[in-house]
């Protein structure tokens, strides 16, 4: 039962590779996406015991299990993946080689499902590596030199990050760290006694490793290269969801392997908080400077995901709540931004952010979706992003004293910068100035609908935050 999301998405991937004709293939893929989402939703309702997939010699078991965090991430990932699907069909038809794209699109989803449902650190590592390998073809899709270079950079950094995490695992194995995930940590207290200092350093290393995928300094340089090089639907899910795999990794390792008690107040925590804040700030600053649109959005991802990481490193329930909300809203909003950017580039061929004069007239739906999501990303109430950032800021100030204050300040500054790099596009789009000739060239409904759905989600979940905040708060509390 726990395997269903994986099975559906993998089957969808197989279909995508095998079926040559477009219509049946797209139907299969869409069907697989829907089934995956539904099965993930079903899992949210159900309460299933952990599933042992395979035993590996040396006492390792690959298992899947279900807890609040797993449900949250599984639902989010499969949901957004499903919504982006219809956008991708016409886009990739235009780009070419659809079988390859959708095959790996679905297989990446399968690996992400496995990641969300992983029951212990080794299983997590396995799906993490698989996810990297399966998403590389997405970056490589265009086959251009730049894409190949970008994918190799992606590969290099990802493997480096994953290997740092694996190294930590090697050490943790002797302390029981590979046994599973449990809130409050799974390490065997009798064995860890006396080794706390070393273990905290291991935590630092593993966080840096997983943080690579989430775009945290110092391993973030691949992200602005790789995300723009991929086709837009792929950039969307890369930025929106695959980066969250890194966040999930840090979440699992910090709260379910080590346990916050061991880590709170250590210098490692301070270092990581500092790095997260640094990423937040520099990401925004660099995004502000970038002219190519997709690169600007990629830097934005770097910055925004580190909001969530900041929340996680605070090691308080409030911080986790803020982080999870940020994950949700950023996933939704960033997907829209990339999809919209993709639509704009697709239609107009213009690549730089200043060139979108009057795009509001030409592509109104797209630009409105873009605008709403931009507001959410900046954190303007009542859009969703406001809530996540509010929780983050308040938790920071509550818990961490001076660093917390600094954190809140930086969050605010970053919000300003975010406005600075997103709003002008919107402004120029709607108010192009006098000498301008509009041509209506909106994209088709297949591409519009996903953007609308996600933008609406960003807005509505902000307005009616209760149904979302409640369960997420429960999940956040369950982590401790």
């Amino acid at each position, binding site marked *: 039962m726990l395997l269903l999301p994986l099975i559906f998405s993998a089957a969808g991937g197989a279909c995508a590779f095998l079926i040559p004709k477009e219509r049946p293939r797209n139907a299969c893929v869409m069907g697989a996406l829907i089934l995956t989402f539904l099965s993930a939703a079903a899992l949210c309702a159900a309460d299933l015991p952990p599933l042992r997939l*395979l035993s590996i010699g040396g006492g*390792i078991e690959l298992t899947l299990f279900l807890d609040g965090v797993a449900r949250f991430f599984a639902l989010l990932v499969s949901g957004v993946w499903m919504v982006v699907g219809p956008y991708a069909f016409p886009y990739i038809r235009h780009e070419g080689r659809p079988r390859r794209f959708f095959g790996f699109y679905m297989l990446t989803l399968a690996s992400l499902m496995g990641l969300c449902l992983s029951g212990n650190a080794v299983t997590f590592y396995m799906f993490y590596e698989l996810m990297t*390998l399966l998403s590389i073809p997405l970056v490589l899709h265009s086959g251009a030199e730049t894409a190949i270079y970008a994918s190799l950079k992606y590969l290099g950094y990802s493997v480096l990050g994953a*290997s740092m995490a694996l*190294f930590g695992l090697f050490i943790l194995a*002797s302390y029981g760290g590979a046994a599973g995930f449990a809130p409050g940590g799974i390490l065997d207290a009798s064995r860890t006694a006396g080794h706390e200092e070393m273990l905290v350093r291991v935590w630092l290393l593993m966080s840096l490793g997983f943080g690579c995928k989430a775009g945290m300094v110092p391993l973030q340089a691949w992200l602005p290269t790789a995300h723009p090089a991929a086709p837009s639907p792929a950039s969307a899910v890369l930025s929106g969801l695959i980066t969250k795999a890194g966040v999930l990794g840090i979440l699992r390792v910090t709260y379910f392997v080590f346990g916050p008690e061991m880590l709170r107040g250590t210098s490692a925590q301070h270092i990581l908080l500092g790095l997260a804040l640094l990423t937040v700030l520099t990401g925004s600053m660099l995004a502000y400077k970038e002219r190519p649109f997709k690169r600007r959005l990629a830097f934005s991802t770097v910055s925004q995901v580190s909001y969530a990481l900041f929340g996680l490193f605070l090691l308080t329930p409030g911080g986790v709540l803020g982080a999870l909300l940020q994950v949700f809203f950023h996933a939704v909003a960033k997907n829209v931004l990339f999809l919209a950017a993709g639509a704009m580039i697709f239609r107009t061929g213009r690549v730089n952010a200043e060139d979108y004069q009057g795009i509001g007239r030409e592509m109104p739906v797209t630009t409105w979706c873009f605008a709403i999501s931009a507001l959410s990303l900046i954190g303007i109430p009542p859009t969703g992003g406001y809530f996540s950032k509010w929780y983050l800021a308040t938790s920071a100030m509550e818990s961490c004293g001076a660093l917390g204050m600094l954190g809140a300040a930086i969050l605010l500054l970053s919000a300003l910068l975010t406005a600075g790099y997103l709003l002008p596009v919107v402004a120029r789009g709607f108010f192009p100035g006098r000498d301008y000739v509009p041509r209506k060239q909106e994209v088709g409904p297949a591409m519009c609908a996903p953007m609308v759905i996600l933008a609406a989600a960003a807005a509505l979940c902000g307005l009616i935050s209760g149904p979302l905040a409640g369960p997420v708060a429960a999940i956040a509390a369950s982590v401790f």
Partner: protein
Amino acid sequence: MFLLSLLPILLPVLAGGLLMLWKPRQRVRQVFVMSAVLLTSALICAAVAETDRLGPASTACTVVQFGRNMSLSLRIDRASMVFGMIIAVLWPITTLYAFEYMKHETNKTRFFGFFLMSYGVVCGIAFAEDFLTLYIFYEMLTLATLPLVMHEMDQKARYAGRKYFIYSFSGAAAVFILLIFLMRYGTTLNFVYGGVLDMAKAAGQESSLLTVFLVAFFGFGVKAAVFPVHSWLPDAAVAPTPVTALLHAVAVVKSGAFAIMRLIYFGFGTDFLFGTYAQTVAMAAAAVTIVFGSARAVRAQHFKRRLAYSTISNLSYIVLGFAIMTPAGLCAGLAHMVYHAVLKITLFFCAGAVMYKTGREYVYEMYGLAWKMPVVFATFTVSALGLMGIPPLGGFVGKWNIAVSAAALGTAAGYACAAALIVSAILTVLYLIPVSIGSVWRQDTLPYDEDHAPADPNANMCLPLLVLTVGGVALSLASPWLISVLSGVAAGM
């Protein structure tokens, strides 16, 4: 029992000699060689099964008694079984591949003659009961494989052969010193789990014994391609692919690693060596080799040389596992020995298939070939994933166990070795994945004529590739069983 241990060694050696004298034509030769190989494999399996059945009642077999306590004797213990089964399975597959590969080569009789003889000699190394027998077969291995390395007889082959025998004989000369010291300070030359040192005689001589251990470690390490005595291996990549694949990725280098295992666990014993500076040196040498091999592999553009450096690196995973000197380390090293053998032989076969069909030897000539040679590159990718250590495939099992047992030592050296493994894992991805990526996503722009048109080779080559890949995956899935068997070995059975 006597016959069962002796025949797998004697039969291929005699068959090889007979082949070289008789010089039959191609068809007859192929049948003869394959029958000899299959028969030997069957004999090895029978010997292993029989020993397993007899349990503690199985006996040693003395072939030649030289003196009072010096003899050439064979005894199959669990470690022998592991090594024996590896070669019993891999040799016939390689023979099939070699038939196809050697089609365009000359001097096939000589090739297959020494190929057969090497089989017997490696089996002798696996079944040896004591250090003298091991030494004898070790020397024979160099002699039997030298003509195979030099097969092409051109400038590069002669140079490679010369380097090979200089290194090998130097290594063997170092091992000879070990023999002398064991005769003096050991209770017996036989392999006894836990070591054979006579503590009464050895007391006070620890430092010279540790020196002798290191000398022997690097002596055996020549064949196991430990830095700094590794440099014969990349040059030996000029040999025909079946030779590099089987012998230099499996038989010869694994013999070196196997011998190191015998040295540590059955010669000096971990009680004597654990925690000494000699252990640190051994671990350090292994760690350096691990990183060095991977780093050179990334830089190497010649496909087989890249794989040769990869072998150097991976062999030292095994050596590191042994150098950790705990039962967990021994088990881990043996596990990686099994998995690496299967994976590396597949990778070399893929490289060989490309060379055989298209004549292309360099990595940058592989662009776009995956579409024209799908079987080859698909098996390459799967095996590469295995070697990179993607769970749950075999390479991960070995690496995980080695790294965890290194880290479990708790010392700085242990952590450094685990870190070396990580660095190597990263580099492994960097030297394997770009080949796969390039073969699919880049275009093949090289001109070629009819004889060298890229296409999948025929069944003689594809079948081994597929069997090995599928077998490798199956073996990975069966890793709990394998680990439990190897833990038994490590416990001293």
